[in-house]
């Protein structure tokens, strides 16, 4: 009897300590997700101002810029995949990788060569394990990205985009990230980053509806103001567009970070719940084993007493 009970007690103990860990991780993720959402909210004014400015230039100037020019025949496509550095976040990373695999397949079917850029250790190990090639990797910041991280990524892909196709340049850049909709809903999404589509203010809100762009709306028939540009419209556009790309990357990173933490919090919560469930089951089994042992002991004693009594009678 003792042996079986001891096994159950041991398992209860180990599940208990796992539960403590997952519970702590849940709390940490919960605290960080609040911070991540705050950071995402703090970046909104910049996005709004930038989008407003870009659409102002776009409506006032005849924009033809290398970053907005669509090539007729796209041969090579860059793909930025944003995943987590660490696991234990449920399906967060694998959902992004699945989405990116679909996109890669689609792009290949269109006859394009796909070059991945990886963000987060999970994507890197996924590609390394399968011995697939990738152009660049960034990791170590996925749960709290800074603007500098975004600048690094954006400048690299913009540089590669502007190169000639013959020299390894890209004709388009896509980005796969996770959009944070709510604490319980995050979804992987694909965004075509380059060539940029310079859109009117209200169309931009649709394209980027994960950030609340309260772009000033102009009444029907009311023309947006005629801006004067300093030094001139083209140079303003030159200065703005790279910033716009950086900002887009930054928003994607922030949204992904919030999603990662929310996914981790949820995964850890269900792990804690499961551990609790497991402890309950094991406790029942342990009690059963104890009871069985007691019953056996009693019947042995009674049996022994009976046998003694029978022996005395004779």
């Amino acid at each position, binding site marked *: 009897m003792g042996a079986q009970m001891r096994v159950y007690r041991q398992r209860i103990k180990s599940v208990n300590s796992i539960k403590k860990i997952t519970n702590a991780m849940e709390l940490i993720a919960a605290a960080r997700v609040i911070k991540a959402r705050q*950071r995402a909210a*703090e*970046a909104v*004014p*910049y996005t709004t*101002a*930038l989008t*407003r*400015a870009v659409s*102002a*230039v776009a409506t006032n100037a005849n924009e033809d810029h290398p970053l907005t020019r669509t090539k007729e025949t796209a041969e090579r496509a860059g793909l930025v995949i944003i995943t987590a550095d660490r696991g234990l976040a449920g399906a967060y990373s694998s959902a992004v990788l699945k989405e990116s695999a679909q996109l890669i397949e689609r792009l290949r079917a269109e006859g394009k060569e796909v070059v991945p850029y990886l963000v987060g250790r999970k994507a890197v190990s996924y590609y390394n394990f399968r011995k697939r090639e990738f152009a660049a990797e960034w990791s170590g910041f996925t749960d709290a990205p*800074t*603007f500098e991280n975004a*600048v690094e990524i954006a400048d690299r892909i913009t540089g590669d985009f502007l190169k000639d196709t013959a020299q390894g340049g890209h004709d388009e850049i896509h980005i796969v990230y996770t959009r944070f909709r709510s604490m319980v809903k995050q979804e992987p999404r694909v965004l075509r980053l380059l060539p940029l589509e310079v859109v009117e203010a209200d169309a931009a809100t649709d394209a980027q509806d994960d950030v609340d762009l309260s772009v000033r709306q102009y009444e029907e028939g009311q023309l947006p*103001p*005629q*801006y*004067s*540009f*300093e*030094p001139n419209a083209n*140079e*303003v556009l030159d*200065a*703005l567009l790279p*910033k716009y790309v*950086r*900002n887009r990357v*930054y928003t994607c990173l922030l949204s992904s970070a919030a999603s990662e933490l929310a996914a981790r919090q949820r995964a850890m919560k269900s792990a804690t719940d499961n551990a609790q469930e497991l402890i309950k089951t094991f406790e029942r089994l342990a009690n059963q084993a104890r009871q069985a042992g007691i019953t056996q002991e009693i019947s042995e004693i009674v049996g022994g007493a009976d046998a003694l009594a029978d022996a005395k009678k004779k």
Partner: protein
Amino acid sequence: MSSLKVEMVAADRKVWEGEARFVRARSVEGDLGILPGHTPLLGVLAGAEVAIEGLDGVRHTATVDGGFLSVDSDVVTIVAEHVDVSGSQHAANG
């Protein structure tokens, strides 16, 4: 007298917001002074100091690393990736 609504925004936060009667910034072509009633303008800034004179006469200064400035119906938006506000706020002379 009308006033300017000024918003100063960095990549990761809103730095400052408030009413002002005068804004000075340096664009790539030279210094710009913005008073209420300015024509809509979109200018690329050089990395330099931006000064905002509030309604109360207090002068706020900040250093930007470039970025741009937009003026539209008395709303001034100063946008830069990095804004350094250390050493801000000193009373304007007079």
